């Protein structure tokens, strides 16, 4: 049996089952089980790909190569760890009366469906299905963000829906243009929307249509990536939803959207033979870095702050991919991986911290190291990882990005320097008094799930010091696919 079927079946089935019994006490465990199943299926798929090379499935509608396989694994992995984190977290939310039974069912069911949508978006070969999956991912997360039904969460979800909906509509326009361009040139009998077919004949696609298409696609998927100035939904959605959702939004959804942009960039580059797409991405990237960094300074809500940090990091990645070249692309992929791991770890720690303090306001969170040393150190280490302190992996990718930027685009170096410095100052000055200092808050009733935090940080640490050879090979092959 094709392992891809399992990869899809596990979350879909989980979604259905949990829609029925998600409110039961062991619904949490079932959620973990299904996520674990997805992870196993993804690993199985990965092993198959490693052994046999790229894979087509279902009449070429699905295509798995080195560029998406590591994202599939990453998505399944973070999906799993987040479900582990959800166990005690949602239990406390339920105890505190923020979640009713029906909301629990909705939450778990949508959580699985969301995983499914992302895996679908990652593995599909059809640019149309990619669009559909992205839109579906938006819809599921809209429900997840609004799950508390508070005025703030409704407002956040509404904005999220409208802004991303409109954005995604532009991506549909782009897809139509793409289709139009390929329809004219592609050999009859081949599906003109399949990425592999497009990629094979990308050099003969009409450059004008392709550049128009790329603009629409970039605005569309870029909205989901959270590129400034299309980013306005992102802090609201991160801050008002449940923390596990913030973790997967930052850790996964943004990556998937960026993945879509990269796929489009590959085609555009092939058609245009200039760096039009790259330049646009460089511009968006730098703007996002600056906007993200300067916005960080004024935050008082901890989740909001880290969501701005995600904007900044997505900016760095977009910049890296825009710049292109083997080193920058490698660094961009590495950054995607490590940022996902570190940022979700930070959100896990933040979740526990905010639950302890019963507030997301940073002024209310103090002395974590005293209440719970593990949460405190988890937040501190996660923050340092996010800020690019070695030996965490983000440092490795930032190292490569900055050093190659210094030669390829020297003028951008001061901007990046400014952005990183401001971000560092802003985040660290807030996190330090939260972790250190005095407090009189009592410990939580349920022991926090810190395994995911340290697992993620451990992996992020490892990737800074040692990248396993097979992962390196994937990255290298993916770099070859991205080219540029």
């Amino acid at each position, binding site marked *: 049996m094709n392992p891809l079927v399992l990869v899809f079946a596990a979350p879909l089935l989980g979604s259905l089952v949990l829609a029925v019994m998600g409110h039961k006490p062991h619904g949490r465990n079932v959620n973990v089980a299904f996520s674990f199943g997805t992870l196993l299926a993804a690993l199985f798929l990965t092993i198959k790909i490693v052994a046999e090379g790229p894979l087509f499935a279902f009449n070429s509608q699905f295509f798995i190569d080195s560029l998406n396989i590591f994202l599939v694994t990453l998505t399944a992995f973070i999906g799993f760890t987040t479900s582990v984190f959800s166990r005690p977290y949602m239990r406390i939310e339920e105890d505190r009366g923020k979640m009713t039974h029906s909301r629990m069912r909705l939450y778990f069911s949508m959580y699985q469906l969301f995983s499914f949508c992302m895996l679908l978006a990652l593995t599909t070969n059809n640019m149309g299905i990619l669009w559909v999956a992205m839109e579906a991912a938006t819809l599921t997360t809209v429900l997840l963000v609004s799950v508390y039904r508070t005025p703030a969460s409704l407002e956040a979800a509404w904005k999220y829906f409208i802004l991303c909906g409109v954005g995604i509509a532009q991506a549909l326009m782009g897809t139509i243009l793409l289709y139009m361009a390929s329809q004219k040139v592609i050999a009859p009998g081949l599906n003109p929307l399949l990425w592999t077919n497009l990629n094979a004949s990308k050099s003969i696609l009409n450059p004008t249509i392709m550049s128009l298409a790329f603009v629409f696609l970039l605005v569309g998927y870029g909205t989901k990536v959270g590129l400034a100035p299309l980013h306005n939904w992102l802090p609201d959605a991160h801050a008002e939803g449940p923390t596990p959702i913030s973790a997967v939004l930052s850790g996964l959804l943004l990556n998937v959207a960026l993945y879509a942009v990269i796929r489009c960039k590959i085609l555009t580059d092939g058609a245009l033979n*200039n760096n039009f797409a790259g330049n*646009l991405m460089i511009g968006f990237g730098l703007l996002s870095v600056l906007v993200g960094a300067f916005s960080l300074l004024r935050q008082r809500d901890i989740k909001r702050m880290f969501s701005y940090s995600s904007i900044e990091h997505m900016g760095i990645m977009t910049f890296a991919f825009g710049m292109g070249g083997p080193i920058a692309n490698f660094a961009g992929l590495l950054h995607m991986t490590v940022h996902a791991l570190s940022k979700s770890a930070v959100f896990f720690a933040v979740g526990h911290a905010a639950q302890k303090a019963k507030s997301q306001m940073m002024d209310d969170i103090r002395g974590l190291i005293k209440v719970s040393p593990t949460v405190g150190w988890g937040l501190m280490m996660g923050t340092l990882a996010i800020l690019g302190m070695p030996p965490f992996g983000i440092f490795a990718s930032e190292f490569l990005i900055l050093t190659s930027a210094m030669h390829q685009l020297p003028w951008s170096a001061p901007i990046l320097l400014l952005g990183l410095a401001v971000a560092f100052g802003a985040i660290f000055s807030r996190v330090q008094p939260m972790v250190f200092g005095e407090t009189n808050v009592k410990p939580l009733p349920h022991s926090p799930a810190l395994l995911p935090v340290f697992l993620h940080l451990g992996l992020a640490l490892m990737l800074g010091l040692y990248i396993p050879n097979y992962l390196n090979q994937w990255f290298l092959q993916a770099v070859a696919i991205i080219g540029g």
Partner: protein
Amino acid sequence: MANPTLIDLVLWVISGWLVIGFLGILTLHKFTFVARVLFPLGGVGGLILALLALRSLNSGVDENRTLPIGLPQLIFHLRLDALSSFFLLVLGVVIFGVSIFSAGYFRNSAGTAPGLLALEFHFFIASMALVLISDDAYVFMVAWESMAMSSYFLVTANHKMPKIRAAGFLYLLVAHIGAIALLLSFGVLQANSGDYTFSNMRIQSLSPFWASVAFVLAVFGFGAKAGILPLHIWLPEAHPAAPSPVSALMSGIMLKIAVYGMLRVSFDLLHIHLWWWGVLLLVLGLGTALFGVIFAAVQSDMKRLLAYSSIENIGLLFSAMGLALLFYSYGMNTIAALALTACLYHVAAHAVFKSLLFLVTGSVLHATGERNLGRLGGLIRFMPWVAWLAFIGVLASSGLPPFSGFVSEWLLLQSFLFTPSLPQPILNMFIPVATASIALTAALAGYAMVKFFGVVFLGQPREEKLNHAQDAGLFEKIGMVWLAVVTLLLGLLPNLTIDLMEPVMRVLVGQGLAGESKSHGWWLLTPISIERASYSPVYFLIGIATAIAFTFILVRILYHARLRRSAPWAGGHAWTNSRMQDTAEGYGQPIRQVFEPFFSMKRQLPKPDDLEPKYEVIVSDKFWEGLYMPVVRLTEFLSALVGRLQRGRISIYLLYSFITLIFLLLLVPGVKI
């Protein structure tokens, strides 16, 4: 491995430190074990490292090693050459003293658990050693930032005080910005070859413009770590905040690591050398030195005083380096070697005596609980060990013969006297001024040090509780005695030390001084020629000692007057008390007056009718108001501006998307509107 090479052994020491650190985590709260076993063990590691480095310097080792970690295309490249060996030697020597001291210093009650402290401490020293043997940009940066991070945690060991947290934050922020600048500098140096090893950087030929960019970025990055003006701002905050052994390590070694990096980049990695680089370093260094020492003289917190004194010394190091670079850029390699010798000598000397002095403040702090000079005094009577050891450090720090600080100062001034031979007339004009400021700095350093020693240890105790101060414990004494002995040796045996630097000079400028410097015997230092200049601390010491001994004996033999003790005479005033001594502020008053434009001062003067008259002067750094606050305000302004992007209105957000779309469509090639 049957016959491990030196670099392997160095790596074993580093890993040993890491293991000690992890043992610390395992024994988080076992105070006695951590203090009595782990810290001395780490100290022994330092000693072993020093011996290895000595061996390496003597045998002229140049060993490479790669470790299969790091980035896949860039595994860790390590290299042990003469330059790293020299710094490793300094590192090992200082760590031995500081670790042994720490064994007796840390108390169980401090904010951070002892085991965690051990982890941070050993991680810190291990990362410093790793910086020194790194041979590619990645491992260098990893070790560099680990060093910053671990020292940050050490600085904030007592994190319950908001002031300490603020100091730690400032420190890490400056360190991080500096690190990004370094990263960019390495980015230039690798010249887009994608190969980040130092050996690749050496063979890249950059245009003068790009080489200058790399150099200036390196100055910024390393200067931020070293505390060069105007990036010194963190230093006087972080040093007082940190526990004393940590201040000792930071001041003694970490600042030198920045000097090492600067030497590595400017002499080793860059293949061309422009004369104005030297001038830049020289000007920065001189400014820093003068600034540091003037501020040191007016401080009223003993650790701040020492921190500013470290700024001064770093300034001297940078000016020596700048001078060397200047000579080197004109191909005057012998004289460049002279200036570099001065620089390296001062690295060693300052590392040892400044750590010693910081350890002294630790002992004083433990015995009295006071850091404020205004509440100390007379401790020589209660803590004679600490006081006399401090005295050695103070004399070395003041640059007095025959102590270690004098040798480096002497060498530096000697090299300045060669500057008229430079082919640039404008530089010749500049040199007298530079020399004058070096001389002024040296003299002011003496002023500051007299203040430090005199106010802390001499006179009468300014507080009642000082009468119960206890002398340092055994471990503390051993640590300090070790450093004091090394200080004395460095002062008395300059030729032996310069011999050790010989291979370093060969690496950096192609030739050394050793051939000439001991041509008249090991005891006489003649760096260029005997006619030019000579200095012999041993003779010097013998001369003074003979004179003193002669005088003493003669006075004893010829005269038989007795010695009586009585209350101080004090010009006949009957009612003197300890409050009538000069305060630290009073002692700094002449400096405040002469150098008034340097400071921004707030005075609180007592009025005639005050019932509790209070006099207070707060001297602060003009750089805060003049440079940092505007930057902070600008950043806040910009962030407010960016914050206006997000006003909560969905229509506006949609408008952003709309405008972005239209704008990008206009950018599409081939679209004409």
